[in-house]
C-alpha cells in the first residue's frame, strides 16, 4: 500500500511554504528617506506579521541607539521605522537574529 499517489501529503507544500524554519516570506524592503537637513529615516517594510514588531523595534532601538516606532499602514501592514541611516545595521541584525535571509533583504535608496 505504498502507492505514492494515494498519499495525502501535498508534494508542493514545501515549495510553497519554503523551509519550515523561516517564517519570513517575501522580500523585506529596507528604504531610506531624507528628512530635513542631513537627517534620515529608515523604514523596514515586509516583515512577516507573525513576528512581534514591537519587540523587534524595542531591541533594534537598543542595539542601534536610535529611536524607532511601528507604523500601521493599511496597504503595507506594519512597518518598522527607525531614525537615521540604519540600513547596514538592520540588514546585519536581521540576518544575525535569523529573522530573514540575506537574499530576502532588498535595500533601496542611494
Amino acid at each position, binding site marked *: 500500500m505504498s502507492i505514492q499517489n494515494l498519499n495525502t501529503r501535498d508534494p508542493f507544500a514545501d515549495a510553497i511554504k519554503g523551509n519550515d524554519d523561516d517564517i519570513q516570506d517575501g522580500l523585506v*524592503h529596507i*528604504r*531610506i*528617506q*531624507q*528628512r*530635513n537637513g*542631513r537627517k534620515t*529615516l529608515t*523604514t523596514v*517594510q515586509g516583515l512577516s506579521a507573525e513576528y512581534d514588531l514591537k519587540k523587534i523595534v524595542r531591541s533594534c532601538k537598543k542595539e542601534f541607539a536610535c529611536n524607532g516606532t511601528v*507604523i500601521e*499602514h493599511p496597504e*503595507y501592514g506594519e*512597518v518598522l*521605522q527607525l531614525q537615521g541611516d540604519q540600513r547596514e545595521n538592520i540588514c546585519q541584525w536581521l540576518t544575525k537574529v535569523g529573522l530573514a535571509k540575506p537574499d530576502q533583504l532588498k535595500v*533601496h*535608496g*542611494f
Partner: protein
Amino acid sequence: MEGEDGFDPSLLKKKKKKKTTFDLDAALGLDDSAKKEDLIDESAVDATAADLDDNLDLESFGKKKKKKKKPFNLDELEGALPEGGGADDIVIADDPEEEEINLDMDFSMAKKKKRSKKKDLDELFADKMDEDKGEDKENVDDSSSTWAGSDRDYTYDELLKRVFEIILDKNPDMAGGRKPKFVMRPPQVLRVGTKKTSFANFMDIAKTLHRLPKHLLDFLLAELGTSGSMDGNQQLIIKGRFQPKQIENVLRRYIKEYVTCHTCRSPETILQKDTRLFFLQCESCGSRCSVASIKSGFQAVTGKRAAIRAKTT
C-alpha cells in the same frame, strides 16, 4: 595540475582573469575543445558562476571590479585624473587597457607575454611580476603541445593555452576583445539651493540606456523616496540632497534590473509594456522575461503633519 601547489596565490589571480574571457568563449560554443577543457578541470566550473558576475559588472559600469584591479587605480589613475566627478571616467578609460592585458596574458602567452609585459606594464605590475615570473618560466618553455613527444601529463595551463590558440586561429576577429562594453557617462549631479539636486544629463543617460525618461524617472524617485520633476531645459530636479555617487548607485541598480538581459547580460534589450507588466526583450539572445514593477512602497511622513492634515480635511 602538478605544479600548481607551489604558487597558489598567483595562480588564483591569473585564473580569474583567464576565466573572464574563457567563459565567453566557451559560451559561444566555438570550439569543442573548450568543452573538453571544462571536463578536465572541474574546479573551473565553480569559478564560472562567480565570473559571470564579473562580466555583468563590466557591462554596467565596470566599477565594482575594483577589487581585481586595485594595482591600476591606485598606481596610475588616481593621480592622473584629478577631476572630482570623473569616477566613472576613470574606470571606463581604464577598462580597455585592462582588457588588452587580459588578452595578452591569455592568448599569446607563449611568445608575447614576456616582451609586452616588460615594455609597458612593468611599473604597473611591479608587484605581480614576481609572482608571475615563476609561472612565466613554466609557461614560456612549453609551446602549445610540449607534452606531445614526452609521456608526461599535460597541465591545465597548457591545455588552456592550447584552447585559446585554437580559438584565436579559427576566428581572428576575436582578438580585438569581446563585444563593445557598456560605456556610460557619469551622472552630472549638482546642488540647486540647499534642498534640491539637479541631475543635468538625465536625458542623455536615458537615451544611452534606450529607456523612456519617464521610466527612469519613476525608478529614481521611487528608489530615492523623494519627489522631483523635469525642468525647462531637460534636467531633472530632485528634492533632497544627493551626491553623484549615490545617484550612480541607483543608476547601476536600474541598469542591472531593467537594462541588462537577465540571461545573457547584454545591454541590447527592449523594455516593453504588456498588459500592465514590463517585459525585457533581449536583442542578442532573444530571451524575454518580466521585470519587477516600480513601487515606491511605504513612505514615512517626513513633512509637516499639520500641512497634511490641512490638505486632507
